[in-house]
């Protein structure tokens, strides 16, 4: 496991807890724009953002997060990870980014070159998640070495195009978990509860 690339500083400042700020449209949009600009500078490419798509993604994500929110506070830590996966699901379901040029500063066999849009969205979700976890739990999440493995990114892109729910499992894999691939976008605690019901 390793630390994320240091781009968390590109997120806009806020006086509110990050878990609150990220659920405000104006912060979410500013954060996405700033992060995409920063990662574009790092990999050497310019991205174009579709604002209307981003707004619709935000609303779908809010509703998805709310609909599966666990009632038990003990599940908050796990749910933060799951919520980041849901964000990636919504971003990949209707990609709001277009790379206007191939990344000029990335290796040919890197994830950024292979799928610049998916890479930017994934790193955004991981970065926001990391910042929120640090703020809420004084916990700095590590990412799995598979983040460097192009085969995982190939699988991610291929499967996400067939069903966006795969994105949740991919993100949880990057965070070192073994997702439930049958229903990756169902919060596992809720799934467990439901399976135990007669």
């Amino acid at each position, binding site marked *: 496991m390793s630390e994320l690339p240091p781009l968390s500083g590109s997120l806009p400042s806020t006086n509110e807890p990050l878990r609150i700020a990220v659920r*405000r*449209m*104006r912060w979410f*949009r*500013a954060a996405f724009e700033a992060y995409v600009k920063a990662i574009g500078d790092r990999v050497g490419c310019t991205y174009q953002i579709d604002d*209307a798509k981003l*707004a619709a993604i*935000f*609303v779908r994500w809010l509703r998805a997060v709310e609909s599966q929110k666990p009632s038990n506070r003990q599940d908050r830590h796990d749910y933060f990870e799951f919520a980041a996966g849901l964000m990636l699901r919504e971003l990949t379901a209707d990609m709001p980014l277009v790379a206007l040029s191939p990344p000029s500063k990335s290796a040919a066999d890197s994830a950024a070159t292979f799928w610049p849009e998916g890479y930017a969205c994934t790193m955004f979700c991981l970065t926001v998640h990391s910042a929120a976890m640090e703020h809420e739990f004084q916990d700095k999440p590590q990412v799995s070495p598979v983040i460097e493995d192009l085969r995982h990114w190939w699988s991610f892109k291929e499967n996400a195009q067939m069903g966006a729910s795969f994105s949740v499992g991919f993100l949880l894999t990057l965070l070192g978990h073994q997702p439930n691939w049958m229903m990756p976008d169902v919060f596992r605690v809720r799934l467990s509860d439901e399976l135990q019901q007669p």
Partner: protein
Amino acid sequence: MRNPLPNPLPDAMPLRDALRGLRHAVRRGGETLLDVMPLNQLPPPATHLAGAVIREMGVLAKGVGEVASDFARIALGGGDAPHSAPLKLTARLGAEDEFAQGIYAALRLVLQRLDAPSVYVSETAARMAYLSLLPDQRQGQDADIAAALSLSLVEAKVLRGASAQDAAHVPGRAIENVAIFAVMLWLQSNRHEAEDEAALASATDLALVIAAEADAAIVSRDSPKLSALYAEFAAHV
């Protein structure tokens, strides 16, 4: 809570509205003239003169429309304190005018974002909408009050004269209802003065995403449904 007393001071609001109505007519007329007049087919002195007259009318009329904008910040709360629960439905003197001025300026900004800046906004209608709320509609949760006010603003026809081209910028062509929803959502959001415009832009974008739901609730005058939408999204602007 009793209804606020009418403001006894000389009433400038209908005059402002009348001047804005003139601006609207001139703008629309100017657009129509520019659309239909073959200015480029006139000989040079005539085309310059005709074009200059039409543009001048537009500039003069535009100036009239900005009169109320400076009041908006005062009306909707200034200073550095966060605006929370900003639906100031008090019985104090002039509250309805502050509300109307604020609604006017906010609607203008929303219409610009919706790429429909020439839709006519009536400040007088906004005041009437405020005054026509029943005492029991002035109480309760912010979302409930906002829902009642939204329906009242629609009924008072605070927005008028949207063209088919204006309406096409909003899903379902519901530009008037979506613009009102956006402003009322923004009024309920928690924000600092420095964030006012960013919050209004966000409220507009949220309103566009849920345009079909907001429009359906307004068209059917479903106040509980409208209130539920406000309650769901006010914290997320």
